[in-house]
């Protein structure tokens, strides 16, 4: 058995393509956490991410100058209008003719439809609004849309996932497809599913976006990370969401 696995790994390494995780073995990063961290996430009262969700709920109905419109003016109750939305993002954006992630879409509504200043990916406001919107999909399965216009971008995301990166010359797949469950320093390598974003990371002592997480992994292999908002992240997310199809949305998750 061991020999087979090793042979498999070598074969993969030589052609540069890692073995994908079979659907029945796909598991959220939640499963790799300590019982204490799991409890922190599962209990709404102890999950720090809920502070941002609560803030997002407030922002949702706060009118913005100059149009004087709030998100609620157009979308009414988020509990009804936003259910399942995060589970099918990124989606194709007619305006830019390319995929847009949930944060980008919310920012677009803010700038175009509220006439307010765009928010940065690291701002508490955008994290709060996105956490609130994504929380409306909590417990729902990830269901990427069947939209053929997304395909080339998803394939680009896959290519990034399989490419060797940085000074360490490791691909995302080398860790998240081939070595998940193994230890890297103090942490267990998860499968790398984007099920819980934005999420609260204990190491950050803060809420953060998927892009912040991906930057961390890029820096980890000593690659130059893309800037926040770069299209590469959205393409990678498209691929990650397809790879996580059927897993449950957990926003706001907690991670070590």
């Amino acid at each position: 058995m061991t020999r087979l696995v090793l042979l498999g790994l070598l074969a993969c390494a030589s052609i540069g393509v890692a073995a994908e995780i079979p659907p029945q073995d796909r598991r959220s990063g939640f499963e790799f956490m300590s019982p204490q961290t799991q409890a922190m996430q599962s209990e709404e009262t102890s999950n720090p991410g809920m502070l941002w969700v609560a803030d997002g709920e407030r922002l949702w109905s706060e009118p913005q100058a100059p149009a004087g419109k709030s998100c609620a003016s157009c979308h009414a109750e988020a509990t009804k209008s936003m259910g399942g939305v995060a589970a099918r993002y990124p989606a194709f954006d007619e305006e830019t003719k390319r995929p847009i992630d949930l944060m980008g879409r919310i920012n677009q509504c803010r700038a175009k439809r509220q006439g307010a200043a765009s928010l940065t990916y690291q701002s508490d406001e955008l994290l709060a609004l996105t956490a609130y919107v994504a929380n409306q999909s909590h417990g729902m399965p990830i269901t990427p849309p069947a939209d053929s216009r997304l395909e080339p971008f998803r394939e680009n995301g896959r290519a990034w996932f399989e490419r060797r990166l940085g000074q360490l010359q490791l691909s995302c797949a080398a860790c998240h497809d081939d070595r998940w469950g193994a230890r890297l320093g103090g942490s267990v390598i998860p499968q790398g599913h984007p099920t819980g974003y934005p999420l609260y990371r204990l190491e950050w002592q803060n809420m953060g976006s998927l892009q912040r997480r991906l930057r961390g992994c890029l820096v980890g292999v000593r690659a130059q990370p893309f800037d926040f908002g770069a299209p590469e992240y959205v393409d990678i997310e498209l691929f990650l969401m397809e790879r996580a199809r059927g897993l449950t949305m957990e926003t706001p998750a907690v991670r070590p």
Partner: protein
Amino acid sequence: MTRALVNVPKTAKRGEIIEIRAMIQHVMETGYREGPNGVTLPRNIIKRFVCKYGAEEIFSAELFPAIAANPYMAFSTVATESGTLTFEWTDDKGATQSASAEITVT
């Protein structure tokens, strides 16, 4: 834009032990860390937390720089009478943030 979340059972029987939880959004900056420009970030922490049940103080805590951001506290008390629980956090600058919750005791 500070947020606080408190959790108190809505109802309880007189004499019952109830669990209370409180969490506040706060950086808890230790005063020992350097910012991106190499300059030490000024200390900014919550120093004191107090919970009152009606007029009576039932729980208080002094907080220190080693405590994680967004401090979370859980403690218990005995349900004595219907009323309001108030929560107050005071930071280094003396600013306070408060929250409250009602309980009905039968």
